[in-house]
């Protein structure tokens, strides 16, 4: 679950980290009182969206008076931001923050994340703040320092020293950095973060550190114990994705026209891949899981058919725990209520395959059977020719 900047900064501020003062505003009439509360007339207005690249797209601006701030709020709230990450549809801005401007002497980068290959937390540190870290990593990897703090212990004094040396921070600034690293690491663990990135971490003209912008993501598996975190687990998800999740199914919409219903994440990906090798495109990823009920299967089928791009459907099931007869009944229930408007190809294998096939054969519906997944993909691709 990603947090918006204002949600993340509230957590960071509470943890004692140096975050610039800001106020959230959802309509231009709130600007004046927010600025009064902050005691500023000059500052930065920032669109609250989940995507990166908002500055370039016009979602971040400097204002020099209350009037200007109002005007900018008018422009930004309600606008559609199109960035390199959003695709052409863009995202609508619902709110902005007004923030005191930082006097920027240097821009640094600090992030905590999970290092898969080491099964540990890693901190990435770079003097190249304000840049896209992937670009830094590919073009000047020597400008990134990685340290590996131990979960349950503070970031070691040695690691902090290494980091401040790497960033050429001395004296009080080195102490401030050690404090920032430790508090960030505490937040990372306490909030079950998958990513906590500060970019830029600013050194101000009077030698203070300030966390000016951040990305904050929480491990979805840990949401059960992070219920007090202010965030929307369904943000950035389509209605279909949310609906599928209610039934413990995983759905992702794609651009193609062959709808897929599969059990297991690996097989679902492999089904998308094989469709492509037959010259067609998958319309979705859908893993119905290992223990879906007939009702869930019916729901899944309806989600697929509600996508108007879908011109054919491929059901690919390898029944292990999942029984083929449950799949067959679930699909038939869906077809009975909504009708079958596009060709349906079914490949069933594994547990109760005979019963599953019989149920479909006896239904009298025009359903094409496939012998294996290659045959299924081929038949589905042929059906849309």
């Amino acid at each position: 679950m990603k947090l918006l900047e204002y949600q993340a900064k509230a957590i960071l501020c509470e943890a004692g980290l140096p975050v610039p003062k800001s106020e959230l505003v959802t309509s231009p009439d709130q600007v004046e009182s927010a600025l009064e509360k902050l005691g500023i007339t000059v500052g930065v207005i920032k669109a609250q969206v989940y995507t990166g690249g908002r500055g370039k797209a016009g979602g971040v601006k400097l204002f020099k008076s209350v009037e200007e701030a109002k005007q900018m709020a008018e422009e930004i709230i309600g606008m559609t931001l199109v960035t390199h990450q959003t695709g052409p549809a863009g995202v609508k801005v619902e709110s902005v923050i007004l923030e005191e401007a930082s006097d920027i002497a240097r821009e640094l980068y600090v992030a905590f994340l999970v290092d898969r290959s080491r099964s540990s937390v890693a901190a990435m540190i770079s003097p190249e703040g304000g840049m896209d870290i992937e670009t830094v990593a590919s073009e000047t990897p020597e400008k990134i320092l990685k340290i590996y703090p131990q979960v349950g212990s503070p970031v070691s004094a040695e690691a902090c020293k290494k980091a401040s040396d790497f960033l050429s921070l001395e004296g009080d600034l080195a102490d401030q950095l050690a404090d920032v690293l430790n508090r960030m690491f505490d937040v990372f663990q306490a909030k079950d973060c998958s990513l906590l990135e500060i970019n830029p971490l600013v050194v101000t003209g009077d030698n203070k550190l300030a966390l000016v912008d951040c990305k904050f993501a929480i491990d979805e598996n840990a949401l059960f114990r992070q219920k007090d975190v202010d965030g929307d687990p369904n943000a950035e998800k389509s209605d279909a994705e949310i609906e599928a999740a209610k039934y413990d199914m995983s759905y992702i919409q794609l651009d193609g026209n062959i709808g897929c219903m599969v059990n297991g994440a690996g097989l679902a990906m492999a089904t998308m891949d094989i469709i492509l090798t037959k010259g067609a495109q998958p319309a979705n990823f859908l893993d119905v899981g290992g223990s879906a009920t007939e009702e869930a299967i019916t729901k899944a089928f309806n989600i697929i058919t509600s996508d108007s791009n879908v011109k054919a459907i491929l059901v690919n099931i390898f029944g292990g725990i999942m029984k083929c007869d449950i799949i067959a009944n679930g699909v038939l229930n869906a077809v009975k209520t909504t009708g079958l408007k596009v060709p349906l190809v079914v490949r069933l294998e594994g547990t109760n395959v005979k019963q599953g096939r019989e149920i479909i054969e006896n239904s009298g519906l025009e359903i094409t059977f496939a012998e294996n997944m290659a045959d299924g993909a081929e038949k589905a691709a042929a059906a849309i020719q």
Partner: protein
Amino acid sequence: MSILVNKDSKVICQGITGKAGLFHTIQCRDYGTNIVGGVTPKKGGTTVEGFPVFNSCKEIVAETGADTTMIFVPPPFTGGAIIEAAEAGIKIIVAITEGVPVMDMIKVKKALEGMDVILCGPNCPGLVTPGEAKVGIAPGFIHQRGKIGVLSRSGTLTYEAVYQTTKNGLGQTSAVGIGGDSIHGLTHTDVVKMYNEDPETEGIILIGEIGGSEEEEAAAYIKENVDKPVAAFIAGATAPKGKRMGHAGAIIEGNSGTAASKIQALKDAGVVIAPTAAEIGEKMLEAISLKK
């Protein structure tokens, strides 16, 4: 021979009184696995479907000599259950549970450092040694004892590979599902190494997917150390960047973890690549004939 489990393994289930735990423990017993009981805190001393229930791993190990466990407890308790099993002296821990927090797994891995224990999973289908033992949720009937070692991050793709090698007569020595989470126990490299050292295993099927770099690491190991024929399939060539494809670990982050990078590394190691999941069995036969 085989790897990890066999007819002599003394297997328990942690979470045996839960619906999934009990269902699969019965399935495993029906397959022929030597199930010696289960653990559910506060239900010690009772029995369920003929299985004796104990309060703790320590008690069941002392009483039965259990050496293998499969874990079905809910995600908030899985990390603790793994550590409990390891501290009780259980040697093979198979964590089936899906949805374990990453931070818990980082702590588990730290706790298990230096201990003589093997963790498989979490979020995995488990282990099968055909004709001897099944520990986990794989459908037993598709397996056939033979000469191929199968390993995979995905449950249903394991079944696909197993079934294809059953149909073409190769059969399996063991099948290992290492799980779809980003932080987990046994890696591709660990299992490839075990199959490489197992005299009964004559060929290896490796099934990977997008996310992380374990397949690349396994490819490097194969290049240096493995003479047995290896066939591989990597799922997710068409997956969009930045989206989690069902498995918590199946995500392309930036430019890393792509299917193309994994396929290239495996090809460079002399592994025969199955272009689709329908051709895994076929490509294993091809890899074997190329080595002759």
